[in-house]
């Protein structure tokens, strides 16, 4: 079989169009700021600023918008065309688009649902009207669905499918002759161990998206449980906790990772003890939450706290100590270490944000009203202050998932924590960076994957911030 080209049969039409759109975009992007600046300089003072940009600027602005739309249209044409043409005529892009069909289907379905109910969805509904937020949401959902359907999308097993002769091959290389494998090509080439780069990138999404959001939730639990009393009660507790938080933040992140994740320290059980301490916080948080709210309704309080402690304690025993009596819940050692160090690094920043927000909100009238009613301090913290801090916290949560993804990549980049054959993106970059100048694709594909996911999360956070400011 012939090696695939990037664009297949669509190439002759779409590649020139793409080039034209790109050149137009570059020209307009260069000319537009210049035209704007020139407009300000030559405009006769206040009239120029009142009537907006000049004619030249309006022209370049229009060109900029037009070329952006053209570029988007060409990219969509690549995807749709790649999906529709005959299998033999497909290039690498077309084949990748075809492999990703479950993602397109779910993306389309979920966006249609959001658009249908946008009135009732509040903030998420508003996001669709915000270009940055909508693009961010699409990027994030793309990776979420890719992680969900990784088994259907990836043509090969990311770890065990090692095919002789495919080592360091360029994208689109067909498999060697006895082609009895499930799929005929390595779409994005082979890595240094002859594994499929495309399958590993898709499987990596699953690892990253399983760890990053969960670790961020845990960091928020720790930061909220400690930050609320530090800000609301103040005093010695605040001084002590702030000192500890600043201490952790003053550590160079990478030194901390090295100190926590080296095999000798892991053998001493340091990460397990840290997990034992950090994983307690969600239990404490939920228990205080129910207790402060339903103090006056003992049966409901007992039921909720009992359920929390029973279910949470079971999960806690399994996740932190690997001691689930039923043997269902457990966490692989490498994942636990990575998880704990990421939570540990993130929690102090969340603490500082929550503390700052609490210091601000505790001076409001509704807090004074609750104090006059005789509510306890924990009720005020968890049911008066926390709900009113949700806007900034939600934005920070999105940003922090992105930052956690970057931290996970950093850990992988230094070969810390996860097993060396793990398909996660950081580990793949680390494995491929030695031959980067000669075989760029094995590290390049996960690098672009990290970038697009984090970009999506940051755009989403930006959109959420804008929309919540409007309300």
């Amino acid at each position: 079989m012939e090696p695939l080209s990037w664009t297949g049969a669509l190439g002759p039409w779409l590649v020139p169009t793409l080039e034209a759109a790109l050149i137009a975009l570059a020209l307009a992007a260069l000319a537009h700021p210049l035209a704007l600046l020139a407009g300000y300089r030559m405009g006769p003072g206040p009239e120029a600023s009142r009537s907006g940009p000049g004619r030249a600027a309006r022209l370049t602005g229009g060109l900029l918008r037009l070329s952006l739309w053209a570029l988007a249209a060409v990219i969509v044409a690549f995807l749709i065309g790649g999906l529709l043409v005959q299998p033999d005529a497909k290039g690498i892009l077309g084949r990748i688009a075809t492999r990703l069909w479950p993602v397109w289907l779910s993306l389309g379905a979920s966006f249609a649902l959001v658009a249908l109910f946008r009135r009732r969805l509040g903030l998420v509904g508003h996001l669709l009207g915000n270009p940055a937020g909508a693009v961010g949401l699409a990027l994030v959902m793309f990776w979420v669905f890719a992680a969900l359907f990784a088994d259907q999308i990836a043509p090969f097993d990311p770890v065990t499918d090692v095919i002789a002769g495919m080592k360091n091959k360029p994208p689109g290389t067909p498999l060697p002759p006895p082609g009895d494998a499930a799929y005929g090509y390595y779409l994005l080439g082979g890595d240094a161990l002859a594994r499929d780069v495309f399958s590993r990138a898709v499987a990596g999404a699953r690892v990253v998206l399983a760890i990053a959001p969960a670790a961020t939730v845990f960091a928020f639990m720790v930061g909220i449980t400690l930050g609320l009393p530090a800000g609301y009660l103040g005093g010695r507790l605040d001084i002590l906790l702030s000192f500890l938080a600043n201490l952790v933040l003053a550590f160079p992140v990478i030194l901390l990772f090295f100190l926590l994740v080296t095999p000798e320290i892991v053998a001493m059980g340091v990460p397990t003890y840290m997990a034992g301490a950090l994983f307690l916080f969600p239990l404490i948080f939920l228990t205080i939450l129910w207790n402060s709210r339903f103090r006056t309704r003992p049966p409901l309080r007992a039921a909720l706290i009992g359920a929390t402690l029973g279910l949470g304690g079971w999960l806690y025993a399994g996740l932190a100590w690997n001691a689930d009596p039923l043997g269902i819940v457990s966490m692989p050692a490498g994942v636990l270490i990575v998880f704990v160090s990421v939570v540990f690094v993130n929690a102090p920043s969340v603490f500082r944000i929550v503390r700052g927000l609490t210091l601000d909100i505790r001076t409001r009238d509704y807090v004074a009203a609750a104090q006059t009613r005789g509510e306890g301090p924990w009720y005020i913290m968890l049911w008066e202050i926390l709900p009113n801090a949700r806007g900034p916290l939600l934005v920070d949560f999105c940003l922090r998932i992105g930052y956690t993804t970057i931290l996970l990549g950093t850990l992988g980049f230094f070969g810390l924590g996860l097993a060396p054959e793990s398909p996660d993106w950081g580990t793949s970059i680390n494995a491929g960076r030695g031959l980067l100048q000669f075989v760029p694709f094995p590290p390049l594909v996960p690098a672009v994957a990290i970038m697009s996911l984090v970009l999506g999360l940051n755009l989403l956070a930006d959109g959420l911030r804008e929309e919540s400011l409007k309300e």
Partner: protein
Amino acid sequence: MAGFIIRRLGVMALTALSMTFIVFLLTNLQPNLEKLAKTQAGARITDAEVASWIDRNGYGAPMLTRYGEWLGVLPAPLTTDADGRAIGGRCLRGHPGLAAEEVPRFCGVLQGDWGYSTKFRRPVTEVIAERLQRTGLLMAWAFATMVPLALIVGVLAGMREGSALDRGLSTLSIATTSTPEYVSGVIFVAIFASSMVGLKWFTGSAKSAVEGATFQNFTLPVATVALYGMGYIARMTRASMAEVMTAQYIRTARLKGLSFRAVVLRHALRNALIAPFTVIMLQFPWLLTGVVIVESLFVYPGFGDALVQGAQNNDIDLLLAVSVVAVIVVLATQLLSDIGYAALNPRIRVA
């Protein structure tokens, strides 16, 4: 002001003490000492030899005692053989062959002795000084590219909030903050230094920059460090600029009949640059992490590389010195940014 600075310096000393103690604790755990013994005395030595190596070289005393020895408040014992010759001990490291009487009793940080790097087999002070110089060069270039670019982007975006220029530049800033160093480094090398695209404008390794940094071998590391921090400073500048542009005195200047250009350059710019100043100072500690990644990716033997090497080889004294330098950098920049903020903004007075 003086009281404020003294209090901050006290907190700084306390933080440095706690931090070095934690690093000391983690690097001196028994398995780590055994690993050190094996890398120093040979990988095939028996358990008994490991134990005797640890005792002979002064790693056997209780943890707190040895932390005191590192600080220089406790005397470090010297091991001598039957003839009274010095054969091991904290103060002998790095000075083999010194007679027993000449070995100082105290050799800690307070005496100005930062110890001996077991990985590089040189005094830690020498290693750190040489490495900090190299990293300083990298940081200086990164700052010189990052700060002006970020400020320009931020001011251009913030002067007309919501315009097409603002949207474009803001998206660009978000894109750079989403690109960690190991991602942008890989992409840069693939485009500008690999045989795939074939541009080969720059080299993918900065090893030769030790002898002399050139445009060819230093551009990619500098660009990689600068890119990640740039977006953040630009976003802060934009926010500050946008806020200033809605202020009363800007409206007054507009109504006075000044041109938009004069309003931006003379009235808005100076006030808009106060907030980013803080952010720029606080970028130093951030750059430290970035520098570790970039030095590791581009094989540049600087401070970050010393950190990685020290951590991989459990080089206790080197790691302690690295963490002291790091904590000083972090806390000193915090202090400087607070003082500078107060100095730039007459409305703020530090209590």
